[in-house]
């Protein structure tokens, strides 16, 4: 907070903001200062809201909107950091305060900032207002459209923690009012909001709009259906599969795919198709649509969908994409090959590879995924002449996936010669995943090269752990005897994290070679390590599926990354052993709320679910 406002009370800030707004002057700094004070500033602002003072009310609703963004936080975070907000949003007494904040809803003209402010600050009166519109023979359509826009943003960002089902129900109720649905602009806004809310309860209304007279409505309807029938959370909820709803929507979707002629609608059809992941009828419909409509956006969308689905017709669709020319269809088709490297797609992909003079990123990925040794000469030729590091990395990853001595030689040569740190690090990673004949001496040299970047040396050490040859063991012995000499701290009081990580890779690599005596050192280095080091450690254990006591420590960590790594390691190494811990984590209300929070969870809920399933399947087999 700027020092100028530090000693000023919320009331003084708001009073000054009101004075400035009434005088027609800008209030940005004051709004920022109010935002620093949280919802307490909004509550004072509500006292000054006046229908007859539009500039002031606009400024105050701006403050309410800013400060009430905190409603997206977990209730316990609110309880600790903004207890007043907790009272407003999470206790019955808060409803009266919400009504004060939302009093402008009843005004004849709304300040522009009001819709977003009430969505964030006042869910109860906002829901009431929506219900009123649903029941009214003369609803306020323009205001409704203004409200649906920020409501859609709020819901799409998974910011609604409390009233998602209530908003879904209120939006569904709106679809029953012909005074709203009969108006195209309002109908379009409603379809978008239904999609943002994933309000599958309104599916029947949406399906009716598949037969709307205008292409805009049909396009919005099919887009809406695709979103509401897709995953209900950012992570992909496993709680509600929506199979019944998808089955109900299927006939109308297939009819539209067959009969529609407007490309604006067909493009959306291509995207929505991906919600029927396994449905052969949808695959067949998309194959027919791809052949019938030479529209590039439609074809691209179908190919994007193909990459995510398992339709039996996927190879035929991709094949047609590979025959396309221009407008990016071919590029998406190659991405689909990378997602589904089916043998029947190899001839066309390889022919293209041979004909292509310069390196092509999607073609490299596709060739790598196919893993066909016939791709090697071109990939190696490209590698020799390529200067772009991103392309070089792609080429190295493609070579990794192609088995055989020729790719071995190419990788070994590259590891030998390259001076580009990112590429060498990637090559060391590859060496830790697959054998590179003739690579041992280079890995030893890199691991012991005090001038080499530390991440490269860490990866070289880890790759040596994969090897049983004497030079690899001898190198790890040397490093293990004097880790401080090989990975020094430059005289710093605190050990640099990169050195710490390199040091923990030494016992990890020895464990990987089968040396159980390294276990104690792993435990002690894990104990004293930073969260980043602990994360790297448990991921390494996950990679080699090796159980170790530090996995249990990681499962009890208060650090997100370490907990995530612990779950992955437990799932990979010994899911049955950790089943009770994993179930307890899943049942924890706080961890469960992560899945619906909209925060970047790095798919922790999915990792948890996968680990638990692995454990349960394991015990069922026994």
């Amino acid at each position, binding site marked *: 907070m700027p020092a100028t406002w530090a000693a000023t009370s919320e009331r003084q800030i708001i009073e000054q903001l009101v004075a400035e707004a009434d005088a027609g002057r800008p209030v940005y700094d004051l709004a920022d200062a109010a935002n*620093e*004070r*949280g*919802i307490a500033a909004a509550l004072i602002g509500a006292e000054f809201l006046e229908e007859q003072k539009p500039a002031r009310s606009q400024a105050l609703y701006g403050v309410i909107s800013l*400060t009430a963004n*905190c409603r997206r*936080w*977990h209730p*316990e*975070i609110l*309880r*600790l*950091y903004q207890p007043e907000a907790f009272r407003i949003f999470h206790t019955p007494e808060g409803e009266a305060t919400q009504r004060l904040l939302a009093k402008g809803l009843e005004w004849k003209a709304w300040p522009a900032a009001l819709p977003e402010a009430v969505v964030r600050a006042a869910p109860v009166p906002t829901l009431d207002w929506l219900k009123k519109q649903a029941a009214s023979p003369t609803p306020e359509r323009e205001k409704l459209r203004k409200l649906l826009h920020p409501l859609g943003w709020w819901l799409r960002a998974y910011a609604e923690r409390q009233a998602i089902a209530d908003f879904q129900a209120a939006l569904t109720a709106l679809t029953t009012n012909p005074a709203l649905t009969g108006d195209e602009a309002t109908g379009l806004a409603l379809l978008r909001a239904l999609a943002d809310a994933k309000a599958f309860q309104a599916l029947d209304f949406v399906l009716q709009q598949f037969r709307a007279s205008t292409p805009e409505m049909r396009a919005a309807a099919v887009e809406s259906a695709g979103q509401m029938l897709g995953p209900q959370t950012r992570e992909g909820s496993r709680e509600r599969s929506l199979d019944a709803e998808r089955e109900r929507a299927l006939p109308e979707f297939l009819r539209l795919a067959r009969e529609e002629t407007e490309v604006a609608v067909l493009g959306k059809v291509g995207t929505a198709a991906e919600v029927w992941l396994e449905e052969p009828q949808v695959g067949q419909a998309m194959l027919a649509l791809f052949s019938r409509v030479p529209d590039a956006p439609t074809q691209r969308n179908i190919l994007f969908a193909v990459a995510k689905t398992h339709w039996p017709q996927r190879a035929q669709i991709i094949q047609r994409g590979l025959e396309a020319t221009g407008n990016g269809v071919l590029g998406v088709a190659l991405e689909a090959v990378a997602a589904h490297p089916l043998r029947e797609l190899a001839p066309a992909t390889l022919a293209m590879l041979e004909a292509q003079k310069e390196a092509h990123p999607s073609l490299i990925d596709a060739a790598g995924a196919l893993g066909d040794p016939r791709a090697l000469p071109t990939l190696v030729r490209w590698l020799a002449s390529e200067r772009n590091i991103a392309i070089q990395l792609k080429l190295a990853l493609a070579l990794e996936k192609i088995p055989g001595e020729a790719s071995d030689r190419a990788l070994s040569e590259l590891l*030998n*010669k390259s*001076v*580009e*740190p*990112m590429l060498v*690090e990637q090559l060391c*990673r590859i060496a830790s995943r697959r054998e590179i004949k003739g690579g041992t*001496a*280079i890995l030893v*040299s890199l691991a012991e*090269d005090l*001038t*080499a*970047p*530390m*991440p490269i040396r*860490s990866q070289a050490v880890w790759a040596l752990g994969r090897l049983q040859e004497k030079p690899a063991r001898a190198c790890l012995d040397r490093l293990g005897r004097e880790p401080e000499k090989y990975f020094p701290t*430059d*005289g*710093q*009081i*605190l050990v*640099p*994290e*990169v050195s710490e*990580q390199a040091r923990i890779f030494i016992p990890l690599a020895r464990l990987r070679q089968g040396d159980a005596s390294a276990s104690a050192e792993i435990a002690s280095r894990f104990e004293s390590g*930073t*969260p*980043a080091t602990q*994360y*790297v450690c448990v991921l390494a254990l996950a990679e080699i599926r090796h159980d170790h006591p530090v996995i249990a420590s990681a499962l009890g960590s*208060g*650090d*997100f*990354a370490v*907990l995530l790594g612990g779950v992955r390691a437990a799932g990979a190494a010994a899911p049955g052993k950790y089943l009770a811990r994993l179930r307890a984590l899943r*049942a*924890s*209300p*706080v*961890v469960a*709320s*992560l899945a619906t929070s909209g*925060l*970047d969870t*790095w798919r922790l809920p999915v990792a948890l679910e996968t680990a638990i399933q692995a454990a349960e399947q394991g015990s069922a087999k026994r």
Partner: protein
Amino acid sequence: MSASLLPRPWAVMLCAGGLAFVCVTAHAHESPIDHVERELDLSVKDDQLLLRYRLRYSERALLLQIHQMDGNADGELSASETAAFFTAHAAMLAALFTVQVEGRAVKFQPVGAMRPDARLGQTYEFSAPLGNLAAGRHPGSFLDGYSRIYPGAFRWRRPGEGSPRATRVEPLIPPEAARSSPQQHPAWLELKFEIVVPQ
């Protein structure tokens, strides 16, 4: 030794600061490692070096803290659960601070309870006895071991501020120049200062 095993010209590449940290996490998007922003105030009062230290965690990190605090796993925090957590947290922070004045180690102790604020900040206060410092300039240093565990941007609020007649803490060199090694993470909090005691 084959030509390929000769040392490579890495030095040229090492200038790419921050590469190391990015590489180890090996992901194409935002890191799972939570960073923590911090602000601090250093002052002297009644022969005590005072530190006001504000930490701002990410929402995700705060959720994990709540998960830690929630001893009975009911999803709701009691006053005793939060008090126990923040008391232990303050003690842990104090233990990770390394402070020297005139080459002599001084030890910070937590003072009072953590104060939360509306922007998800946690403010802790610490004090350390300085003894009776004579008039003049007394060099000191502050190294925050917690910033090694959770790096992040930091700001020294109002460095050197105060009346010329009052004892104050002035930065000796800019914080970014206080790092002891170029390999050090740029977000580690390390300060060199002088306590200025007026005549």
